[in-house]
Structure formats: structure tokens, C-alpha cells
């Protein structure tokens, strides 16, 4: 009797320990996602002129909202724009981060503590503040760089993408550098010594030993960078009021926000966000599938 009770306890104990995490996960992840999915299948139906109180009812819409979302030109051009933005931000930001991490890790560098903090500092500036800060630098008549800028307008239709990417790179490089730098510090020093004895140069060590060994962290920062690219919203939102060139559907998430809160179409916005979440999952897993086996080798 006692024996079986103990066995039962053994079976339930893990769940008891997991319960708090599961409860939080359900409340803050599963329920909101479920509610979004539910909303995405609904729509509003107006009776008559729609002016009397209570003339609006919520009805089942089937897949209408998804049809609209998938055939929406603005959402599509937002996605295309963001892909271009990602092609700039991800390689430049990770490239710089890797470069800085390798430089800081090399034996010769001076002031490494100070440089590390200086490069990391922009990450500590909230995105909205960073965007406004850059926005003011970009505005021709207010910018202290007025003379240098000359006729160059960072808010022109052809340059605005780079201006926004610049804010993201400025803010994100430090964090990614930190992740890579930490991975570099974990590499046993003896390896470098062995390489040096074999006649390897510092550059050779960086390219043939350091980079291959920290590939898992580079891949991880890559996945995070791709996700945050698809979710870019703070920078363009904060810069939008300063110029005519950033539309309310500049990025896919801005389009979702505008639909939900400016156009008051929560249902369409819910459908678009489900579509976006699916796209994010596909892209992230796709990236992992392509680079994962090479990066993690024997691990999985």
C-alpha cells in the first residue's frame, strides 16, 4: 500500500514542481494566443446606419480575415521592406559584433574594459529614446551635423531604410558582441598556445579557431536578430511623426498596430499577427535547419 503511494508520488511530483511554470505559461502565453486566434475568426456586423447604441455585433467570420491579410498589398510590401531591412541589419550588426568581440578578446588590445562598456552602452538606451535621439540628429534644421549633412536628407524616401537600420545596428551591436565575447572567454587558452606553437598567426587563430568554436553563439544571435527584425516596430514608430516618408504600415507589426488601434479592426489585426507569427516560426526554424547541423555538429 505504502509502496504504491510512494510510486504515485514519484509520478506526480515532477508535475507539482512544473505546475507554477505551466500555470504562468498558460495564463500569459496560451490564453492570449488562443484569444488572438479566436478574434481572428470574428468580425463586426453593423445594423442599419450603425449610429444607435448597440447596433454593432460580433459575428463569426470564418477565414475572411486571413484571406484579407494574405492578399493585403500593404502587408506584403511591409514584409518585403522588412526583408530588405533585415538584409542590412543582420549581417552588419552581427559582423560588427563579431569583429568587436574578436578585437576585445585579442591579447594586444588596450582599454578593453572601457571599450567593452562603451560598445555595450547603446544597448542600455531604450529603443524609443535611441530612435528619438537619432531622429533629432537626422532632422536637417535641428541637427548639430547640419554642415556635414549638407543636402543629404536621412528621411528621403531612398535613404529612410538605412536611417532606421542605423538606429537598430547602433542599439543592437553591443548586446550581440557581449554574447560572442562571453563565448570567446570560455575557450580554453591552451588551444591558442598550441596554435601559436604550430606557427599560427593571431589572424589565423581568430579565423580558424575562435570563430569555428563560437559558431553556436553566432547562430543563436542570428536567430534572435532575424526574429527582432521581423518584429521591428519601435524605431519606425518613434521616427514616423518626424517625417512624411514612414507610412503607418512601414513594417508588418506597424500595420497590425494601425489596423487594431487606428482603424479599430482588431479582428483583421489578429489574423495578420497569426500569419506573422507563423512566418516568424518558419523563418527561424528554416534558419536553424540550414545552419543548425553544421553549427552544433555532434551536440544534437
Amino acid at each position: 500500500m505504502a509502496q504504491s503511494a510512494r510510486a504515485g508520488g514519484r509520478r506526480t511530483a515532477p508535475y507539482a514542481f512544473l505546475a507554477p511554470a505551466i500555470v504562468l505559461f498558460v495564463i500569459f502565453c496560451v490564453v492570449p494566443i488562443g484569444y488572438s486566434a479566436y478574434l481572428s475568426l470574428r468580425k463586426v456586423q453593423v445594423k442599419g446606419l450603425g449610429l444607435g447604441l448597440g447596433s454593432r455585433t460580433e459575428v463569426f467570420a470564418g477565414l475572411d480575415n486571413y484571406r484579407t491579410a494574405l492578399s493585403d498589398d500593404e502587408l506584403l510590401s511591409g514584409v518585403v521592406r522588412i526583408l530588405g531591412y533585415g538584409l542590412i541589419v543582420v549581417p552588419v550588426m552581427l559582423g560588427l559584433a563579431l569583429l568587436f568581440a574578436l578585437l576585445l578578446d585579442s591579447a594586444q588590445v588596450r582599454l578593453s574594459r572601457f571599450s567593452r562598456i562603451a560598445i555595450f552602452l547603446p544597448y542600455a538606451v531604450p529603443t524609443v529614446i535611441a530612435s528619438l535621439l537619432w531622429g533629432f540628429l537626422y532632422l536637417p534644421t535641428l541637427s548639430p551635423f547640419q554642415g556635414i549633412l549638407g543636402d543629404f536628407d536621412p528621411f528621403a524616401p531612398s535613404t529612410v531604410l538605412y536611417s532606421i537600420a542605423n538606429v537598430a545596428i547602433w542599439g543592437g551591436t553591443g548586446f550581440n558582441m557581449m554574447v560572442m565575447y562571453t563565448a570567446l572567454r570560455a575557450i580554453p587558452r591552451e588551444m591558442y598556445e598550441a596554435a601559436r606553437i604550430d606557427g599560427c598567426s593571431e589572424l589565423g587563430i581568430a579565423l580558424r579557431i575562435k570563430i569555428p568554436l563560437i559558431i553556436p553563439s553566432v547562430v543563436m544571435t542570428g536567430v534572435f536578430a532575424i526574429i527582432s527584425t521581423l518584429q521591428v516596430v519601435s524605431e519606425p514608430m518613434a521616427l514616423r511623426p518626424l517625417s512624411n516618408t514612414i507610412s503607418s504600415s512601414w513594417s508588418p507589426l506597424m500595420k497590425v498596430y494601425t489596423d487594431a488601434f487606428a482603424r479599430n479592426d482588431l479582428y483583421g489585426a489578429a489574423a495578420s499577427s497569426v500569419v506573422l507569427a507563423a512566418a516568424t516560426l518558419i523563418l527561424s526554424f528554416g534558419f536553424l535547419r540550414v545552419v543548425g547541423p553544421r553549427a552544433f555538429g555532434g551536440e544534437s
Partner: protein
Amino acid sequence: MKMKSAVVIALAASLLAACSSSSDDGKEAAAPAETGKVDLTFWSWAPDIDKVVEKWNVAHPNVHVTFSKQANGDDLVTKILTASKAGNAPDLFQAEYQALPTYVSNNAVADITKEAGGLKSKFAEGAWSLVTLGSDTVYAIPQDSGPMMYYYRADLFEKYGLTVPKTWDEFAQQAETLHKKDPKKYLTNFSAADPGWFVGLAQQAGASWWGVSGDSWKVSVNDAATKKVADFWGGLVQKGTIDKQPSYTPKWNKALADGTLLSWPSAVWGPGVLSSNAPKTAGKWKIAPLPQWTAGENKTGSWGGSSTAVSANSKHKAAAAEFAAWLNTDPAATTDLVKISQIYPAASDAQSGPALQTAPEFFKNQPDFYTVAKQIAGTAQGFTFGPNVNVTYAAYKDAFSKAIPSGAFGGALDTMQTSTSDDMKKNGFKVS
């Protein structure tokens, strides 16, 4: 691998959660109405209106109003609609006239006919019809009106030898003359960020964007009158004789303050904006009626203008309606609204009251400011707003911003029309 997938899923999930979760906090503590003291919340953005609210609180210990400046203009519409759906809207809020049909259609405002129906005689017919939407139901109490007029820098007009334009043709010529004399100066700017400004200019030209026949709506955002206005401004933008930057930006503030912009077609509440954005130009501005489309005419439109509405969520409708009535009809309160918040009151008594005898501090150089303003206010054209002004306004911002480089404003107007009528059809309105 497993761990990493979980991270990715959780991240993707948080994206969704961020999009769908509306704030659950800040729920109103429902004070029991029967036991005496009532607590009300009020969202507005009129400058310094909290000081007027404070006076109510001192005089009415049993009904305490907590003021909160949550957002301005269109952003507040967004907040109210969301809060109302979540069941935690404030008891009272500032509702611009153009947004009221949207609020009514979304069940965000309470029917206060019983509490405030008796106030009808205190307002001009035009103002009252804006809060009843032409019906017998009262949805809000008018607070101020925003007849448009022409603000210009008298000193700089003299310096550059410009005269106050009487017609829009003259306006276009003046813009060209000025820009030739000094390529760094502009007569004004076309703001693709201010749909309310544009609709006011369109009203002056006789536009009618929404109409009702039977139980169906007529939508004509791109009617002939509006097209005329859009083409006129598009032409100026194309020629480059006016500035293209949006209003209400740091750059725009600087342009007003340093004399880059010489005039501003705005509304009667302009002194509040000018005095806070360009304080050093006090005493240099003057007002005149807007330029006209036909010489000798005398018409204007309205930019904004607000009412005070009681939300459908409010548990204290009677007390809230009482505050709204006091705020907008009590002589002491309306005097404060003029002096402190610098608005042009909607109540008839207040318009001829003592507060409007002296010009605003910023316009000391024009002692007859309110006399001129009152004459202009009398020429404001009526206008019916539809139940999805938010959609139309959002479309304005995007379509006109996009059209700024080319100046092809006619096409932008067509986009607004399509956007507006498509949205109405999608929601089940009958659109003819």
C-alpha cells in the same frame, strides 16, 4: 535543439501576446453611488484643464473628478475605443466632434438625453446637432468649436511686402513671391499628418464627405469641392513654393519660432499652440479670415472642436453628466476654459461673456482678436461626419504622405475614398 525550439516558440508567442493583450490593469474602483462620495475619471488634452477640474473638486466635495492626460487627438480615440472594449474606459472624456459618430457606433458613449437634454437652449443649433448627430439623443455636451482662420506674421509680411491674401489665388501668388525673394522662407506648409486640418479646408470649399439617405450612407470623400482643395495644395507642393513638412514636429516648431514659416491657416485655438511652440514671437502674429475660393465670399471650415462625453462604461452617469454640464455651461467654468485652456467656448452665453472681451495674452497687439474670431465663427460651414472617421483619417496620413514628393493629391483623395467606403462595406454598413 529542443531547448532552442522552445525559446523560439516562446518568442514568437510573446509577439502574439504583445499584439493581443489589452491592459487589464487600471480598472476603475467602483465607488458605491448610494453611500455619498463618487469618484470620476476624466481624460482630456485641453491645455491646463486640470486647473479647471480642480475648481470643481473644491466646490463639489461629494463628486471628485480625477483628471488624466492620456493622449492627444486621434491617439485618444484609439485609447478610448480600446479601453471601452475592455470595460475600463474613464467616466468622462474629451470627444472631438468628428470622432463622436465613431464612438456612438462603437458603443463607447452613454446616452445622456435624460440628464443633459435640457441644455439644448444653451447652445447654437449647429453645435447641438454635432452632439446629437441630428437625432433626438444626446451623446455629449459641446465644449468648444474650432472655426478656421488665417494666422500670419504681421512683421514679416511687412518686411517682405506681402499683403494678407483675400483669395486662395492670391495666397498662391504670395507664396511664390515670398519664395522667390527668399528661398529659405515659406508662406506655410502642407501637413500630410493633419487630416483634421485638411477636412476643415475642404469644408470651406463646400465638401460633403458623408451623407445619410434612409438607412444607407453616402460616402464622397473625393467630391468636386475636396478635389479642388487637394489639387490646389498639390500644385503648390509640386511647384515647391510651400513647405512639405508635417506640422507639430520639433522642426515645425522651430520653423514657426524662427520665422521660416510666415503664416498658418489654423483654428481659433491657435494662440495656445503658438504661445507654447514659439513663445518668442508673441505680439508678432495677427489673424484674418481664411483666403476665399471666390472673391467676396465669406466662408470657413472647422478644425477640431470638442465635446465632453460620458462613457458607456461609467457607473455614475448622472454625476458624470452633471460635471460635463458644469464644465461647459457654468459661467465661471467657461470663463476659466477661455482664460486657462485658451479654447473658444461652444456655449452661447460664454461666447458673449466677459472672458472673450480681451484678446489672448499672445495677441496683445490685436485687441479685437475675439471680435474678429466671432465674426469668422459665424461663417463656419456645416459638415456631417461618418462612423469611421478614424479609418478615413488614417488613410489621409498615409496617402498624402506618399503623394508629397509628386504632389499628385487627387490620387491620394481617391485612396481615402476607397479605404473609407471599403471599410464601411466590410463592417456591414449599407453604402450607396
